[in-house]
């Protein structure tokens, strides 16, 4: 197939965009390979020789606390994203497929919720959790991230497009209960959308800094973001651990990349789009 010349411009733009996104990552990769002595002496894009030494040092730092932070991040992001996806999918399904009084009000309030940045909510949430005696617990970071208005909004949009009313109607005629319709008809059709929501939420929680920073006092419960920050702001009277921070940042994006690569195959839309066609 002949390429049309008009394709050059969009392709060029996309290449630029890709460069824009990949440059910082490659910077992290290259910088992580530099030993402390090389960090500020070698050219920005010249790889160094200290990657393994950096990883070893990071592994030894405070008896391997980095891996504990990594595990915490997995718990927060994995657990939080999973719960959040379920809650969003069920609420989105309900909002899309049922007509009930107050439906629009709820939806509008959700839209309003999207407009409120979660950063604004962190401190009030902290004060609330303190009242409940739950500050500085794993729940303090998990619970506030489960309800995510934007994910519910996405789920609703996806459910109205992906779950045909006629299919639900057919199920009802066959005598399926509403719960069964949700689990056996609705949610399976929504899987691609749910994967999207899961990935969004996972990345958002993985990268979240302010909420765990405020909620947690015990450094054994820190996620990676807050943990690495303690390395960065370690007071001026000792050498800053730049090489460990950059190496830590590099290691902390590996799970994200792995997740995206493995989840990609679930990201097939339109597979079930033909369920009622034809």
């Amino acid at each position, binding site marked *: 197939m002949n390429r049309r010349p008009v394709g050059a411009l969009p392709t060029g733009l996309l290449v630029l965009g890709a460069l824009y996104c990949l440059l910082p990552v490659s910077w992290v990769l290259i910088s992580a390979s530099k030993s*402390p*002595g090389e960090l*500020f*002496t070698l050219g920005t894009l010249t790889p160094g020789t200290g990657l393994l030494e950096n990883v070893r040092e990071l592994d030894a730092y*405070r008896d391997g606390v980095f891996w504990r932070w990594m595990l915490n991040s997995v718990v927060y992001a994995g657990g939080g994203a999973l719960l959040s996806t379920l809650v969003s999918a069920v609420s989105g399904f309900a909002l899309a497929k049922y007509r009930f009084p107050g439906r629009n009000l709820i939806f*509008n*309030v959700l*839209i*309003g*919720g999207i*407009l*409120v940045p979660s950063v*604004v*909510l962190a*401190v*009030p949430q*902290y*004060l*609330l959790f*303190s*009242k409940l005696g739950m*500050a*500085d617990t794993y729940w303090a970071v998990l619970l506030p991230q489960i309800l995510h208005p934007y994910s519910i909004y996405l789920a609703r949009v996806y459910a109205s497009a992906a779950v045909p009313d006629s299919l639900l109607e057919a199920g009802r005629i066959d005598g399926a209960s509403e719960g069964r319709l949700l689990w056996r008809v609705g949610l399976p059709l929504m899987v691609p959308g749910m994967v999207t929501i899961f990935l969004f939420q996972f990345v958002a929680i993985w990268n979240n800094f302010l909420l765990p*920073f*405020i909620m947690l*006092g*015990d*450094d*054994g419960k820190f996620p990676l973001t*807050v943990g690495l*920050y*303690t390395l*960065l*702001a*370690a*007071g*001026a*009277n*000792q*050498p*800053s*651990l*730049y090489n460990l921070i950059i190496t830590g940042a590099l290691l902390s994006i590996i799970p994200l990349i792995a997740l995206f690569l493995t989840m990609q195959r679930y990201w097939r839309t339109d597979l079930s789009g033909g369920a009622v066609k034809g």
Partner: protein
Amino acid sequence: MRTHRLALAAAFATLLAAGCGGTAESPAAAPSAPASSAPAGPVTLTYWTWAPNMDKIAAVWNQANPDIQVTVSKQAGGDDAAAKFLTAAKAGNAPDLVQAEYQHLPSFIAADAVADIAAETAAVKPEFSEGLWGLVTLGTESVYAIPQDSGPMMLYYRKDLFEKYGISVPKTWEEYAEAARTVHKADPKVYLGSFSSKDPGWFAGLAQQAGAQWWSISGDAWKVGINDAATTKVADFWGGLVQEGVIDDQPYFTPEWNKALNDGTQLSWPSAVWGPGVLESNAPKGKGKWAVAPLPQWNAGENFSGFWGGSSTAVSATSKNRAAAVKFATWLNTDPQGIDLLVKEAFVYPASGKGQAALGEPPAYFAESQPDFWQQAATIGSSARGFTFGPNVGVTYNAYKDAFDKALQDKSPFSASVGTMQDTTVADMQKSGFTLAQ
């Protein structure tokens, strides 16, 4: 329909914001009267600190004191640490012990977040210099923390390059300016130093040296004098050099600045006693080439310095085990074993006079070029002028960054930026309900 929806959303957002504001401003759980009596059975204390290896130091203490177990939680340091502690105190979740930078201690006091431990600490007062003790009392009868580490300022300089460019160590700021011109003329790529618009603590230290008193307490009222003659003099001095182009305006601790220190295109740094750690990690090539001298003086023959950084150990007002907490803080900062651990494990320059005198081996970075590093530091440290920080240093420091950034950009006079700092600070204190003396 669309506008309706947006209006609703906006209303909702406002409602939320109002709700948040209300929560945040509601009075904190009133600090209950702490039990000063020795509690029965083992007590557990939590300690927020960012000093490295503090968990190891606490382990030594825990071994010897089964009744008072200290759990260290390593936090990120700096301004964020102060904000986090204040938030936690407001919510009633403050740790028993907290590392408090001197400049943030007044904000803790104003928020009733730290306990007055004057009675328990009377015995350790002689351990510390007058200037340092003033930082934890704010010049009152109360004592709000025990000094932990200190940061007297001195001039770090490249010995070899000073010789190369034929300049001697400046004794006065006038000589410093002259040296800056000489160096920059000899090689336009090279600067004697840099003015940092991102390090208000550094500027505050230099202002202290010149005799500034940004805050003072008279009776119940605060007096704010950031735009006093001394501070204006310091600002105009650096502003003049920057205007002339003979001093760099690269903020400290940036990669560019690190590089300049490392490759020898910046020859000096007026900094604090904790400088070796920074130089070691950021300018590894300069090992054995840097030396220290007292800061240049404003008038020949004078001998003054200021403080940049340093922190103390405070006991939070809501701690249920105040006596035990003070006991640990006292051990950490005045007991020979505690100080020794602080120096060896946490790499701090101890606040205690005894601790400073006990320092022997210079930092490895200075072993060749300044073998008497600690003796120099002790001499310089004793010349550091006292200072009282105010309850909203964070606001003042942010104003510094904004105003001086702007001055650099617009090439406007630095003294105007000092005026902005004063106005911003006063306005914020008025808004927060502090009584201000005229």
